[in-house]
């Protein structure tokens, strides 16, 4: 038997206590700000009459993609509304999209940095591996410690969970751009920056869009888990049904989440498809 155990858990607890003691005033106040931004977003979706939201979403989806997906969107929302989880759905959309936005805000630039230097890639890669394999419950706890229960902790957890694919696929997309293209740009005297903006990023766009798609899907998945730390939304419905063994309620929440997932997935997929088509119609 092992007599001596390295007290890793104790150490980490000690470190976190120290850090959170000094940092929490700062983090909590910034958390208040973030919370109000997400709340605002949520309110925009919840405040108008449901019909108006459905109509606007329908039109946006139609403009971005095609009428079939627009019909699906409106029908899906109608179902969510009629089974009584409208507010929760809006809240989930707000949180998932905020999480996606923050993930992309950091993920895409990080991916670009990783693509530009092998050293950067070697540093970023293991961090991403770590973020992706770490069971999410493990970082839910420190997130709550730093930011308190609520939407901001959920946002941070979402970022940890959803950012890696955005970073990876941005990096991959840029690195996959053929050497010929880069050489051609260089041969005309393009600087690194010009090559990146004018050649590499546009050519990497389909791959980057695949990363955005994955990022949205994972952000959505995280909102369910994050309901345990007070994220609210559809995840809360599912969580409550689990606690009360209310199978019917669980199905309602689950169905709404699935509808959202399909909608967001098709939406991003169709946007990138449409981009490609526009280019080819010349």
């Amino acid at each position, binding site marked *: 038997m092992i007599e001596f155990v390295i007290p890793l858990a104790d150490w980490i607890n000690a470190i976190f206590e120290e850090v959170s003691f000094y940092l929490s005033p700062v983090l909590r106040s910034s958390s208040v700000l973030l919370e109000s931004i997400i709340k605002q977003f949520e309110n925009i979706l919840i405040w108008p009459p449901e019909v108006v939201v459905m109509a606007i979403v329908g039109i946006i989806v139609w403009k971005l993609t095609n009428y079939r997906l627009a019909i699906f969107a409106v029908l899906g929302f109608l179902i969510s509304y009629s089974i009584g989880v409208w507010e929760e759905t809006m809240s989930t959309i707000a949180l998932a999209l905020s999480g996606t936005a923050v993930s992309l805000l950091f993920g895409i630039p990080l991916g670009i940095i990783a693509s530009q230097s092998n050293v950067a890639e070697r540093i970023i890669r293991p961090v991403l591996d770590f973020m992706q394999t770490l069971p999410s419950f493990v970082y839910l706890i420190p997130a709550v410690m730093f930011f308190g229960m609520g939407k901001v902790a959920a946002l941070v957890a979402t970022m940890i969970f959803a950012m890696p694919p955005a970073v990876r696929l941005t990096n991959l997309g840029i690195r996959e751009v053929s050497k*010929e*293209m880069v*050489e*051609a*740009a*260089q*041969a*005309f*005297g*393009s*600087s690194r920056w*010009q090559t990146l903006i*004018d*050649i590499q990023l*546009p*050519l990497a766009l389909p791959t980057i869009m695949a990363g955005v798609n994955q990022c949205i899907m994972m952000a959505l998945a995280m909102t369910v888990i994050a309901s345990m730390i007070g994220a609210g939304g559809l995840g809360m419905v599912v969580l409550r049904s689990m606690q009360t063994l209310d199978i019917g309620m669980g199905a309602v929440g689950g169905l709404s989440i699935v509808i959202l997932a399909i909608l967001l997935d098709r939406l991003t997929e169709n946007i990138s498809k449409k981009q490609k088509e526009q*280019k*080819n119609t*010349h």
Partner: protein
Amino acid sequence: MAIIKVKNLYKIYGKHPDKALKMLEEGHSKEKILSDIGQTVGLNNISFEVEPGEAFVVMGLSGSGKSTLIRCLNRLIDPTSGSIIINGKDITKMTKKELNELRRQKISMVFQSFAVFPHKTVLENAAYGLKIMGISQGEREKKAYEALEMVGLKGWEDFLPSKLSGGMQQRVGLARALATEPEILLMDEAFSALDPLIRKEMQTELLELQENMKKTIIFITHDLDEALRIGDRIALMKEGEIVQVGTPEEIMMSPATDYVKKFVEDVDRSRVLTAEMIMKKPSTVVIYPKDGPRIALHRMEESGISSIFVIDKQNCLLGLVMAEDALHAIEKNEKSLEKIIRKDIPTVLPETLLKEMFSLLTGKNLPLAVVDDSHKFKGIVLRGTVMAKLAGGIASD
């Protein structure tokens, strides 16, 4: 003065270039260096100069270092040692910024696989170099239009490259390179991916452009026909070294090594050899009006020939006198050649191809006269020489 001066250029691929350079110095071969220390010799002591307006062709088998060489000239590849002087400046010592300036202003490149940008329209592609130069949109589009018109792509400006055939895509590549009005054009197997007919067409167009614009062109190919057609001079590379540099004529007529000889052997001579390459100095001529029939007959007798070419004092060809006509004139006691000069003889220009001369020679046993544009007499082509060249003997001089 030379526009490009390459001196003792080496390129070693691998982590230990110094060791490889040392082994080269000791006289080891490329294979030994690769097997012993795992370094690939890309270029081995290359030196040459290119004059402004010259079309300099680099030939060689696959892996002989052609692409490495041309990519060193705009430093897409950094050479290991040696100097490349362009317009008096050593580009191997340039900073990134100076280098980009050079690439924007002076040197353009055309790629084997076209490398046109698939997400940009034909017009945007052609304007790319100008955009990088920082030229305003209006002006760069104007210049791009002109460049596209020059390569025959008028009307295709708003299409994406994917809608164009290979030949047309390469024209876009050429327009993109020409739009910045560079002094030097680097073309790495620019026409190799095109089918033979389009390829010929592009060669012709390039020659025309070259005639009008007098660009300095470095052109890489492994097709001898193409090299002979385009090159003012040709360099032959083998295992990273230049084995011979010379005019097409020199390469064809006096290959320096067996490697070069192999290269020129399987070419279709009738489509490559020109009158200038195979003509000889006539053993003798007569000058009108100074010389009369008697002198003409005497000279024919001396050289053992049955006809003689007549030129004037300015060396312009007037015609041909046959031995029997000269004899008649002597019998009639005529003093001048005037009446017996045959003026309707076939002549060829120095650049006339062997296959065209062949048809002129059939049936008659007279030599062909080679004259230039201003009718100056350059030399003669004998029927026997034409036949021998067609049969493939190079050393039949």
